[in-house]
């Protein structure tokens, strides 16, 4: 223990002293700068925090890998756009030269302009419009990659099951079977009961889809690392699918309880339908909350990790001696955040599946006619 502590302290001091000569060197160039605002402006001119953060969180038209000096290394992705009058255009995003130049009237809007970071078309009259954009962006590419990944993982496993269903699972199968069983038994079956077989394919797919997307966002190397579930469309659509399934599988009883809630005084329902309105709103809020929870969790995780990493560069731009200390601290915090994010990634996939199954089972409530007497008895119990 003591040895470890000494080792850590020595390492820490090494880092600090390594920065000293640099710090003295920098002091001369920083001479005359005393105002804090000036310092911040100075930092921003060296390192653009907002741009750095958003370029990592937002969708983009190419898969950025790293910068070596001034050269940007990235994987270009296909841009598919429809011009307002000229029809469809398909070209690689490398034609934009990382957003520096336009191509055939198209360009990527800069930060601060309308439709920032998106492909826009400059019409002959000089006005800028957002074009209909079906580009395979970073997130779209990651989605497709995830689809391929999921199929490559699960189809061989399914084949293994068909070949010898009674054999002890082996390899990847034994890794994933407990997970599948956990979701199937503890989430889907416990919420939906006997009718689980109808909904299990959707819910299992949702679980593994979200889990893979969440975890792939945590791996910072191509072809992973896109903030997929932190893009509002993805959780939004998933929640929308759940909403459709809730409504398709809903029973008469569900609508009766929503539109004519039992056990509620008549004046709350009849002239002005206060309770039905609240109930209806809550039924819409459910998928919205489902979406927001997943989106906010994953987005916040990415944001925090990136901001923590940015601290290194911010303080690096200010002063070298602080930078070295901050580097260690922020790396430690980033490691902690990443571990926390792994947990969040799994929990969010679980929660989304759990709540989806709970909402579906709530919509499948049996059509029961309660008399006033029965309801009062129920309340008493």
């Amino acid at each position, binding site marked *: 223990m003591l040895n470890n502590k000494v080792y850590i302290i020595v390492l820490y001091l090494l880092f600090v002293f390594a920065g000293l000569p640099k710090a003295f060197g920098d002091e001369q160039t920083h001479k005359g700068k005393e105002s804090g605002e000036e310092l911040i402006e100075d930092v921003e001119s060296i390192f653009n925090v907002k741009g750095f953060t958003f370029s990592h969180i937002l969708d983009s038209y190419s898969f950025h890998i790293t910068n070596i000096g001034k050269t940007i290394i990235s994987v270009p992705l296909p841009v598919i756009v429809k011009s307002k009058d000229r029809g469809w255009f398909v070209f690689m995003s490398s034609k934009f030269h990382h957003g520096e130049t336009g191509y055939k009237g198209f360009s990527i809007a800069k930060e601060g302009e309308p439709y920032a970071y998106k492909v826009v078309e400059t019409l002959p009259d000089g006005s800028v419009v957002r074009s209909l954009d079906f580009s395979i962006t970073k997130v779209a590419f990651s989605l497709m990659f*995830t689809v391929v990944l999921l199929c490559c993982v699960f189809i061989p496993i399914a084949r293994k099951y068909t070949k010898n*269903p009674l054999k002890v699972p082996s390899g990847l199968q034994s890794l994933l079977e407990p997970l599948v069983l956990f979701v199937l038994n503890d989430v889907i079956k416990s919420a939906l009961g006997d009718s689980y077989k109808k909904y299990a394919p959707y819910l299992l797919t949702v679980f593994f*889809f979200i889990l893979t997307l969440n975890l792939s966002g945590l791996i910072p190397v191509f072809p992973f690392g896109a903030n997929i579930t932190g893009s509002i469309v993805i959780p939004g659509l998933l929640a929308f699918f759940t909403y459709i399934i809730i409504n398709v599988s809903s029973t008469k009883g569900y609508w009766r309880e929503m539109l004519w809630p039992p056990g509620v005084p008549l004046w709350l329902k009849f002239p002005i339908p206060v309770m039905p309105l609240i109930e209806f709103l809550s039924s819409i809020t459910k998928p919205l909350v489902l979406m927001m929870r997943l989106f906010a969790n994953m987005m916040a995780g990415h944001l925090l990790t990136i901001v923590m990493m940015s601290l290194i560069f911010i303080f690096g731009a200010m002063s070298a001696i602080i930078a070295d200390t901050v580097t260690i601290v922020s790396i430690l915090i980033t490691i902690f955040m990443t571990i926390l994010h792994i947990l969040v990634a799994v929990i969010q996939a679980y929660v989304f599946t759990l709540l989806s199954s709970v909402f579906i089972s709530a919509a499948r409530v049996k059509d029961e006619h309660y008399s006033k007497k029965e309801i009062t008895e129920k309340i008493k119990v």
Partner: protein
Amino acid sequence: MELFNPDIGLAFWMLVSFGIVVFLLGKYVWPTIMNAIHAREQYIVESITAADEAQEKLKNIQKEGNELIAKAREEQIQILQDAKKIKDKTINEARDLAKQETEKVMEKARQTIQKEKENALREIRRQVAFLSLDIAEKILRKDLDNKNAQMDLANRILDEINMTKQ
């Protein structure tokens, strides 16, 4: 905020991707896995019941075996006891027989001895008679010249002796 702007193109690709995933996994993977797991669960349940039954059977068989062994042991003891009895009986019988035989032999011997004794006695008597005759002859030589008269006298005396004896 760019963060909250839904993108139609992305929504389209999401629809396509998720549709493919749901179709492929929902049709080919999850039902297969669920059925296989269900089959395996059933198989395990069946195996456990079969194992239980087998164990029960084994227990019964063991019980039966134990019973058989106990029975055999009892029989063995019985047989041993019987054998002992038979042995004792045989020995006793043999002993009795031997006794009887011995007694018979003894009886015969005794009879023979008796006979021999009688014979001997008779011989002795004759000898004695002869001797006494001789003696008497010598004594009576003077009295009895006739040999026949002498013999008659002697026989008469001997008969008298015999008669007194009987």
